[in-house]
């Protein structure tokens, strides 16, 4: 049970890190498409986005990236982080709960900055930097588990030698 749960914990941590990379890809792909659209067609206004978000009729194909960035970021990633925290209760990883809560905390900060950035743009800048912090902590959370299990595998050999 323990081995399975720490494997689940480790995988979820890496999924969070991978999701951050996906989020970066989505939003820049969308922004690049926006630039091309304006270059070709020339007009973007409030209802370009407002209507597209709901109807799904995208003014340009890359708009999907912006839509998915929002959906993935507000719904899927928080759900995964929550599952990470729940798995940390059962996985006997030293300080596993602390790290899982740190990941969840950074996700909460990231969503808040993302929403706030729509009104105060400097929060958007912080959203970009926090993404890197979140990626790093999520990777570390997963790698710690690998390092700990590798350390356990090496110990018996060392012990045998000294004895």
């Amino acid at each position: 049970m323990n081995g399975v749960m720490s494997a689940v914990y480790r995988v979820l941590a890496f999924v969070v890190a991978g999701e951050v990379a996906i989020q970066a890809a989505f939003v820049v792909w969308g922004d690049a498409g926006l630039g091309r659209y304006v270059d070709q067609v020339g007009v973007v206004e409030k209802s370009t986005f407002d209507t597209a978000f709901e109807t799904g009729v995208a003014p340009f194909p890359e708009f999907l990236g912006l839509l998915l960035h929002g959906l993935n970021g507000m719904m899927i990633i928080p759900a995964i982080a929550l599952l990470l925290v729940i798995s940390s209760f059962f996985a006997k990883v030293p300080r596993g709960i602390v790290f899982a809560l740190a990941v969840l905390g950074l996700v909460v900060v990231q969503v808040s900055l993302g929403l706030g950035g729509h009104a105060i743009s400097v929060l958007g800048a912080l959203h970009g930097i926090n993404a890197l912090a979140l990626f790093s902590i999520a990777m570390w959370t997963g790698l710690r588990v690998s390092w700990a299990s590798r350390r356990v595998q090496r110990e018996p050999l060392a012990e045998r030698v000294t004895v």
Partner: protein
Amino acid sequence: MGVGSGRRAPRVSSRIRLLISITATLIILGTLGWGWTASRLPASYAATDMGVMDTGEAQAVAHSGTGHAGHSGHGAASSAGSPHDVRSLVAGESGPADVSVTLTARRERVTLEHGLSLMAYTLNGQTPGPTIRATQGDLVEVKLVNQSVTGGTTLHWHGLDVPNAMDGVAGVTQDAVQVGESFIYRFVAKQVGTYWYHSHQVSHEQVLNGLLGAIVINPAKGIKEDIDVLALSHRYAGKRTVNGQAGDVITPAAAGSTARIRVINTDPGVIPVWVSGAAYRLVAVDGTQVSAPTPIENRSVLVPAGGRADLAVRIPQSGQAVRVEFGGAAMIIGPKGAPASATPAPSETVDLLAYGSSSGIGLDPAAANRIFDYKIGRRPGFVNGKPGVYWTINGHLFPNVPMFMVAEGDLVRMRISNHSGRAHPMHLHGHHVLVLAREGVPATGSPWWTDSLEVKNGQTYEVIFRADNPGIWMDHCHNLVHARQGLLAHLMYQGVTTPFRLGRHSANYPE
């Protein structure tokens, strides 16, 4: 595991640890599950059950100081009488109508003039639907026939303060008109100006896809300008059109003549409108004439979602045409073949708080006996079982939004403040509100009567109106997607009831 390396955890402690872990998990999942179930809307409910009653009296007493026992007596008297069903709130006039129109609603494929083909909603085969024209004082009768709009439809008269039974809100003032059914709207055209009509059933989708049209009411003596031009702006599948045409739309006019251009914004977002080739005046806002409008150059007018702006221009004697710019489309007015060069969007806008000249407003803000707050915010939560980040009104998610209670004759003040991160075009049915101040700066221009007010993030507006139209009136964001997400409250007159129901067991979905 080496024999001497680490401690052996006692079995009791590891069991307790497991128990704590399971409990913590159940608490997390339980909280989410409770949030989900508690937010589910009932299968059937009435608009009068939806929300938290706000009588606005406590604040009014605190502000005005003097006793308001008389007013509460007045309120009690009007509710002591038998309750009025919304169906009884109709136009008093009987007999044949002066303007009689039948609008048949269909869902069909249309090809707009620039070749774009899409599934849209048409009225009498066209989108936008036919323009209804009347003279002030006319009794207008419109028969809505639903030929093929599955899910039902209604017509709401945006900006017209019609009797409540004619307001067209599915589930509140009527049941949606299903396929094969019809509904007759009758009202007296008391207000002069530019208005529009649109569906209020599944409105976020039906209005987007074209179930709308203009209604123009002229004074008996006609308008001052030589030419009357309609400029209904709508985006179909992302393409901006004016009166259903994309690109440049041409209206012929002689050099030296004057034109009134009736701009209607039927989209969910604010649009800037400006004129190239001549100075222009803003002569009416949301149907109300502007007092002493001054010429405008190098500024645009921001027309909120649902709002209207009447612009007056004089076609230059030089023979050039004038362009009314919509950003992506334009209305060109002038002699045939006359040149007209476009100008980029001005960075400055017209501030309605200080445009035109002030005249007496006829209302004493200090005498208001109801004072309400309409605070728009945003927070995560559940609405009808779906998790997300939702709009809040006075801190509450839908359906725990305020029901603003008033009695007929009340003078009502409302403070609309927005700290939700996005702009919202706020629309109150059945009434026009007068803007008193914005962020404490008092209005000094022509009395700014509006029914569609763009409230930007961080802004606060103080408005006032007389409760002179009994009924149950929606007060919502006209970005209809936001309304569907819960940015929707209503004004309720004491003693008014409705037999109509909302919820998934009814067929009524006003947003």
